[in-house]
């Protein structure tokens, strides 16, 4: 068994090191430089405060994380996006009664549990202030600043008698279920029904 004599070859060591450094640097670069465009679609069916909050929180974080984010506002979930000042909406008795009983506007949402005739939202407001939790208005503003798309449901607008001018600014054009369904089933897309 011959003992192998390792002759320190300074030149070879240096080039080996250089090659290693190159390899490490190459590995650190993403193999494919095209980033994946992710998407979040939220079907906002509910109109209560405790349900619209997660819609706006998930949407704002998705947009903050570079996701293409869309909120489909349907049924009760469209009413919070009516202008706060608009008390009664719709034509005809039934539509007007509906808005009378379910006050539209993001500042007038009820709680789905423990509403306590309005005490519930007030308490949530107090707790939010105390623990620095963002309000629905703040979250909506952040969402719109970050390019979240808010899509009204055409069918709900028809049924409830809501007009474009009743709604807040910055909403997209009304769409239907087929549009949302297609979005939900695209690649790299997460969807929520709230």
């Amino acid at each position, binding site marked *: 068994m011959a003992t192998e004599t390792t002759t320190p070859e300074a030149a070879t060591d240096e080039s080996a090191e250089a090659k290693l450094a190159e390899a490490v640097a190459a590995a650190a670069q993403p193999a494919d430089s095209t980033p994946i465009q992710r998407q979040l679609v939220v079907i906002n069916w509910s109109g209560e405060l405790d349900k619209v909050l997660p819609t706006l929180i998930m949407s704002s974080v998705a947009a903050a*994380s570079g996701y293409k984010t869309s909120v489909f506002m349907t049924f009760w979930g469209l009413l919070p996006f009516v202008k706060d000042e608009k008390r009664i909406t719709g034509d005809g008795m039934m539509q007007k009664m509906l808005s009378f009983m379910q006050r539209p506007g993001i500042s007038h949402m009820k709680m789905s549990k423990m509403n306590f005739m309005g005490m519930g939202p007030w308490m949530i407001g107090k707790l939010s202030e105390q623990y*620095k939790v*963002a309000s629905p208005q703040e979250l909506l503003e952040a969402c719109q600043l970050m390019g979240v798309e808010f899509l009204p449901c055409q069918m709900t607008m028809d049924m409830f008698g809501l007009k474009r001018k009743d709604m807040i600014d910055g909403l997209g054009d009304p769409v239907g279920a087929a549009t949302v369904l297609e979005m939900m089933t695209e690649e790299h897309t997460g969807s929520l029904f709230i």
Partner: protein
Amino acid sequence: MSDAIHTTVDAKGLSCPMPIVKTAQAAKLVPAGELIEVLATDPGSVKDFAAWTRSTGNSIVEQAEDDGVYRFVIKRA
């Protein structure tokens, strides 16, 4: 380490999702390669920032906690 912080985001006292949202908004104005410093007190933000940097391609270069205040130094991709 010799790079100066380009922008500091003070998210102390803010709850989810505001630390992330404010950082994302600030990051839009920060040129690539520059550093953003974020200060937060929300313990949930630790995992949140890891996830956010993964989603956005930014990277956390420094992370520390001092007396309940979390400090993240993020490199803008």
